[in-house]
């Protein structure tokens, strides 16, 4: 984009063209060679001298590119910081969730233990009208009865029997994962 001289510069640039006694001899004679036209030329409005301003495209593009890169970097930094903040927030939330879950796990474990407590079961059974047995008797079940029940209900399959998980196993799994998470 060529630079254009501002309009208010025109009088200054025209100044050297004004006729002064000292400068009259320095005017190029070739400008108006026809004497007939000289008067008309002198009467015409002085025209500005147009000069070609040196092009600055390269510098401008460097500045523009740098600006874009800088802007991009700043934008990236902001986005990165925002992402970190988001992740930290998510981390805080997850930590709280783990803590709450751990606390809830302990509370539920307590509730389960209390519900399974022989004391509670005894009270509940008494409330339902049950009484402790006064004696016990062992019976021998005939092989025929055992066979009939087996045919009816079937044996416990190996798959089912071996896939039972003990209370200790369950606890161990949770402890190994959660431990003392802060």
């Amino acid at each position, binding site marked *: 984009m060529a630079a254009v001289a501002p309009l208010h510069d025109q009088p200054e640039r025209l100044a050297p063209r004004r006729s002064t006694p000292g400068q009259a001899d320095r005017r190029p004679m070739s400008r108006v060679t026809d004497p007939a036209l000289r008067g008309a030329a002198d009467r015409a409005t002085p025209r500005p001298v147009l000069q070609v301003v040196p092009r600055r495209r390269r510098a401008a593009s460097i500045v523009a590119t740098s600006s874009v890169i800088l802007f991009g970097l700043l934008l990236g930094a902001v986005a990165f910081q925002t992402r970190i903040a988001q992740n930290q927030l998510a981390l805080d939330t997850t930590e709280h969730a783990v803590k709450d879950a751990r606390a809830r796990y*302990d509370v539920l474990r307590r509730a389960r*233990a209390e519900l399974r*407590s022989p*004391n509670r079961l*005894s009270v509940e059974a008494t409330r339902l009208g049950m009484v402790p047995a006064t004696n016990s008797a062992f019976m021998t079940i005939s092989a025929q009865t055992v066979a009939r029940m087996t045919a009816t209900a079937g044996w416990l399959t190996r798959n089912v029997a071996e896939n039972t998980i003990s*209370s200790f196993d369950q606890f161990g799994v949770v*402890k190994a994962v959660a*431990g003392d998470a*802060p």
Partner: protein
Amino acid sequence: MVQRPVERKAVRSRAYVPGVFRAGQPHRRLIALFVLTVLVFGAVLTRVTILQTADASSYTLAGAHQRTQETVLRASRGVIFDRNGDELALSVPATTIFVNPKLVGDPATTAAALATMLQLTPERQQALADAISNKDKGFVYVARQIDDKTASSVMALKLAGVDSYPESTRVIPGGDLARGVIGRTDTDGKGTAGLEQQYDAVLTGADGELVRQHDRAGRSIPGSGTVTLPAVPGRDIVSTIDRSIQFTLEQALLARASELGARGGTAVVEETTTGNILAMASVRRDDQGVYHVTTANVGAVDSYEPGSVAKVVTIAAGLNEGVVTPDTTLRVAGKIVYNSGTPWEFTISDAEVHATQPMTVHEILVHSSNIGTIGVSEKIGPERQYDYMTAFGLGQRSDLNFPGESKGILKPWQQWQGTEKVTPAYGYGVAATAIQLIGAVNTIANNGVYVSPRLVQATIDKAGKMQPAAPSATRVVVTPQTAQEMNLIMRDVVCNGTATRAQVDGITVAGKTGTGIKAIGGQYATVAKDKAYYSSFVGFFPAEAPRVTTLISIDEPPAGNIDRFGGTAAAPVFQAVVPTIMHQLGIQPPTTNGGCPKK
């Protein structure tokens, strides 16, 4: 150019005219301003330099302190499990309420509000009001380790100066179940009794620390969260206690002690081959006549004269030494008077009045003859008697190593004087804990091998892995043949002797009763109705292949009636708990010949 000095002079000579501003002399002012600016910037620069150099560390610390929060990560205390994985004691989240008196405007009102919410007694309310009135303090506990729901209700009041923080608390989900064995912790979570105390180092983890930087709202600053030291949870304990057996035992003891009007009772159930204590209970009558499960593990910390249960040791020693056989016949008097006619005269008699008569060793034990047992003891001598008593575990603390455990009383045989040389043979002049006594009889059940009792069979580490405890120490005390002979005699004690009320239908039980007279103030009462008894039964089953040994003791059953004996006071409790034990352990009775022979 010529007129300039005139103009300057004219300017200088201008008089001050109010309301008219003139330019003055900017040169000096500019110099003054420059100097002032230099000085100010110099001062600022100097201060900045000092801040960045000499004072840098302190301000860095202060700044870090302002935005850094150091949180102690409390390590969770390990759980105490029973042998089946049911929780006997565990820590659960709770909340502690405190107050900063300096921030409280009206202490009385605040105390009243807190007392209402927390159901404090008037005395406690007044004490709290007094504490809050003391403005010198900045922290006063209101309630520690209360449940979160109550704490939320208190905090919802938004009382000035009242705040809370999370703090775990120790609970026993089973109520009083096995509390004597489990023990307790103080409010700071340190074990002060029972297994909680004994295994405090195992159960207690290592606290950690979380250092994080936070903003004004308390939110952590992105990328600044750092766990500097993670908390290490305490290890969990897998006890040998079976919760169902423990409950059954406690209930049976409570029922029997209450039925008899006894002072209390103690019972222990032990797995024969491993020494694992499956249940350990004691009950006591309070001043109001109400029976409770005790907080102390009486079975380990109290010792008493075992009475006739100790005859198991003496007869086994005689058989093992070869001085008698089960069929050896001794002439047994009805009573023996020692130091006759002297101030130290002492009469020993059998519980069953009889004249001098021949009795086999088998009969001596079945009918629990004191005189007959002394006869066997005299054949082996006091030194060997003492050796066998210590080999059976008497007079020394067991490997249980329970806090406050008693080692009982057993003087070295060289110090035995007068009748002390014979009374230990039938359980007097010697004191034993329930743990010692069951260990001694369990040696017979375990084919002559003493096995140390234990209450913990494993721990669970921080990775959730179970680490089995070392097996109980064992030692051979008598030969398998001697143990088998004793086993047969003790079966007869249950079927035909003093412990018929310990019989269980379909199951062969072997055992021995004991009725010790308690010394009150160092003296034995001479009048029958004033005597205080300690009546016991120790038995094991199935006698053919013993799995479980059980001791039942009733403290001070009624002195005046038939229920004062081990066979009448204690044996019925044994009979009541055996079915539950069999069910829990999956013990199946033999299909034939189980129990006592039909007559």
